[in-house]
């Protein structure tokens, strides 16, 4: 059985074919095209043309994509969202979309309605749902919107009302996709609402991406199970992705981290992905990318759904190096893809990080004109580059102990043999296409993230039921029942809440069952 992994990034589209034992058969890198179909098809053509692999042997095809991120950032092809907040009589002091960038609000053409509903922190209703009120809302939204977002107060504690409302609108407005907040975000109504609205706004985009991916595969006679990479480093089925497109956002860096894990065989490490303009630093924890616990902005909108904990710094192979007064400055400007024209070692006029690393003897590139950098005072500048990365690594660690560091990306060789804070520095083979490898490899996961009041249930019972539910969710999503296990478990006490409530986050994952 062969796996095909495609990762569509902002600049490059990477592709990889993996064999029976997840060995790398072939890989390719090409420039991302405007239309999805062509870029993917080119990639597949290259892979099939340069191997003896039969298209019929490809059984799993996965796609990591930035299309949803781009749709939000560029405000393109977004759905008209009907926002239904179950909150009255609370909540009216902050209406939906209040803090959104104006241009995005204009593009969304959203209609929002607040109705009675929602829960207290302990799950007792603030108000019951009122069918007449829901009916009025449906009348108000019908014909004006093509996607719905339903958000209930304290739905991470109890999601019953949201589900009830979703059933009502599925009947009242047939064919309109519905996103409910309890399945997307965590505590913090506004941030969760924002994430749910964004999810609802991406329905058309994700559908289009899925159709084009299917079309590209069909054109090459590939009949495979289709999966999408999601931002926790696992896969989701095409059906699941079409309900939760927001989970594809930031799947690029997580695919890199997963790929790095596979290539290096390290379950716990810091992954440093050095590109042309930036370096992304992520954390590999038990084989999966660590999540951030902070609010994250997506396209200028504050959200709180799960996102990888990535720290980016302005350092890459093309980063410009210049003198300001008597001090050397490192970036953050970069020559980007024009590196091979502008860098000293390629006969250009701009001093870049690549020039400095070559002058320092750390990096070796064929055809580089090393004589051009002889006079570069690399002993002054090179430590600055290294220090930047070392500081960033340290920032991402959770303790002072040294930890393995995996270098991936085209600029990995910018760094020396050893780094401060690193127990070892690993540079795996095929590191340039780590993201496509990560996309091809993913497991299937199930996540439970919910608040549990400990008023009339014990801590042990809560954890036990959360674990059970996470495993079931993973199996439902397509994971192998016998091989699915808990990979992450955390709980946080919530300050000031009466009755000792805790936020529990449990993730289970297992390999695909085919």
């Amino acid at each position, binding site marked *: 059985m062969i796996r095909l992994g495609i990762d569509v990034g902002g600049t490059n589209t990477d592709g990889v074919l993996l064999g029976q034992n997840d060995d790398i058969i072939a890989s390719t890198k090409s420039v991302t095209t405007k239309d999805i179909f062509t870029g993917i098809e080119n990639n597949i053509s290259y892979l099939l043309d340069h191997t003896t692999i039969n298209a019929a042997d490809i059984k799993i095809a996965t796609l990591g994509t930035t299309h949803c991120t781009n749709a939000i950032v560029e405000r393109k092809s977004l759905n008209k969202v009907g926002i239904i907040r179950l909150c009255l009589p609370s*909540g009216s*002091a902050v209406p939906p979309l209040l*803090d959104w960038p104006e241009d995005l609000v204009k593009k969304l053409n959203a209609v929002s309605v607040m109705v009675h509903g929602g829960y*207290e922190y302990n799950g007792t209703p*603030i108000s019951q749902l009122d069918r007449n009120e829901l009916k009025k809302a449906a009348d108000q939204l019908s014909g004006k919107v093509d996607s719905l977002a339903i958000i209930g107060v304290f739905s991470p504690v109890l999601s019953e009302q949201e589900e009830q409302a979703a059933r009502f609108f599925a009947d009242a407005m047939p064919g309109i996709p519905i996103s409910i907040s309890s399945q997307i975000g965590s505590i*913090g*109504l506004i941030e969760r609402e924002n994430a749910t609205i964004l999810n609802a706004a991406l329905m058309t985009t994700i559908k289009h991406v899925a159709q084009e991916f299917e079309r590209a595969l069909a054109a090459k006679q590939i009949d495979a199970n289709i999966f999408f990479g999601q931002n926790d480093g696992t896969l989701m089925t095409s059906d699941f992705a079409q309900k939760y497109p927001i989970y594809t956002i930031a799947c690029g860096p997580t695919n890199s981290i997963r790929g790095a894990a596979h290539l290096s065989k390290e379950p716990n490490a810091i992954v440093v992905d050095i590109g042309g303009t930036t370096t992304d630093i992520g954390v590999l924890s038990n084989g999966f990318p660590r999540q951030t616990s902070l609010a994250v902005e997506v396209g200028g909108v504050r959200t709180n759904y799960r996102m990888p904990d990535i720290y980016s710094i302005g350092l890459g192979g093309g980063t410009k190096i210049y003198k300001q007064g008597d001090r050397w400055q490192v970036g953050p400007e970069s020559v980007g893809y024009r590196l091979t024209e502008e860098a000293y070692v390629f006969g250009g006029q701009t001093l870049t990080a690549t020039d400095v690393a070559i002058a320092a003897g750390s990096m070796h590139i064929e055809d580089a004109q090393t004589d051009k950098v002889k006079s570069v005072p690399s002993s002054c500048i090179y430590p600055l580059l290294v220090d930047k990365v070392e500081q960033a690594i340290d920032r991402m660690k959770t303790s002072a102990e040294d930890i393995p560091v995996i270098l991936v990306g085209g600029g990995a060789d910018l760094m020396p043999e050893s780094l401060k804070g690193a127990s070892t520095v690993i540079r795996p083979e095929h590191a340039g296409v780590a993201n496509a490898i990560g996309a091809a490899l993913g497991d299937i996961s199930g996540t439970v993230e919910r608040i549990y009041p400990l008023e009339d249930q014990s801590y042990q019972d809560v954890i036990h039921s959360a674990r059970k539910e996470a495993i079931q969710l993973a199996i439902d999503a397509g994971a192998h029942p016998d091989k699915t296990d808990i990979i992450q478990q955390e709980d946080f006490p919530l300050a000031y809440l*009466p009755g000792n409530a805790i936020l529990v986050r449990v993730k289970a994952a297992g390999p695909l069952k085919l």
Partner: protein
Amino acid sequence: MNVLTEQDIKHISVGAAVLGTGGGGDPYIGNLMALAAIRKYGPVRVVTVDELDDNARVLPASGMGSPSVLVEKIPSFEQLSAPLKAYEQATETKTDVIMPIEIGGVNSLIPVAVAAMNGLPILDGDAMGRAFPEAQMVTFHLDGLKPGVAAIGDEQGNAVTIRPVDGFWAEKLARQVTIAMGGSSIVCDYGISGKQAKQSVIPGTLSLARKIGALLTTQVTTDIHPITQMLDILEGVKLFKGKATLIERRIEGGFTKGEATFEGMDEFNSQTCKLFFQNEHLLAEVDGHPVAITPDLIAVLDEETGMPITTEGLKYGARAVIVAFPANEKWRTEIGIQTAGPKYFKYDYEYIPLETLAKERIKR
């Protein structure tokens, strides 16, 4: 600052997070409430303490309870007004000016929303000059004032008025009512005259928060770092610059307590700073010697962005500048120290003012 603009409100929310000394609840939701209120009801006029008529009736408004509830069960506009109405009814008075009781954290902007929707001006001053966890920790209490009538309201339209005998009872009773209301409420208490306000309010704190926020949110263009400029304005002290290397937190009695250890950088190289917190940062030690003690203000700022870091948001590896500001003189009195000094929070130190500690540190 005669009228609050949307920009002012954003700046106040950042400044309020600094004055929140690590606690006080995330001002973001207060920011949104104030923003929504002025968009719907129009601008809010700011009056300074000096401008107050002696007979003016000034009423503080604040949120009480769990910030985790406030960010989910957001108040309604009606709820923001209900305690004010209940207070006026119970006391048979009319309110002329709304004031924040606590400038640190989310409570800096909730009263702005209350003022906007009732067409009342907001007072440039508060009764803490920072954030504190308990309701009796206000300058009114230090001056021997009683809360008088306290009115507590929720989103259902419930309003409860109580007549507690003192600040401690106000805290105890209002807290119970708040829990029954689902863990979050809006409270109006300590209604005072303009004359009393001139004596007991810490003046200028709203515009101070705005100024801090404006400084920290501007791009660094001048040679003087925004943090340095802020220290000048607040007569503050840079206590430390370093990296968080160890953070221990636990929940005790509904409060987040703990310690954070920082290893020094730059001019503080090879020194160690220990920070003690209970919702707010309350005590800082460098190499075993105290360098700032509550009620003086301690704030932790991100070294790169200058943005304040809360006690909950503090993580290993954070690079921070730790600063401290002298508390208002009212807090440095015997009763002030008794109410919110180190002993009250069970730290085994006598209160020593920040400036004295700084001089001792130089001698060492």
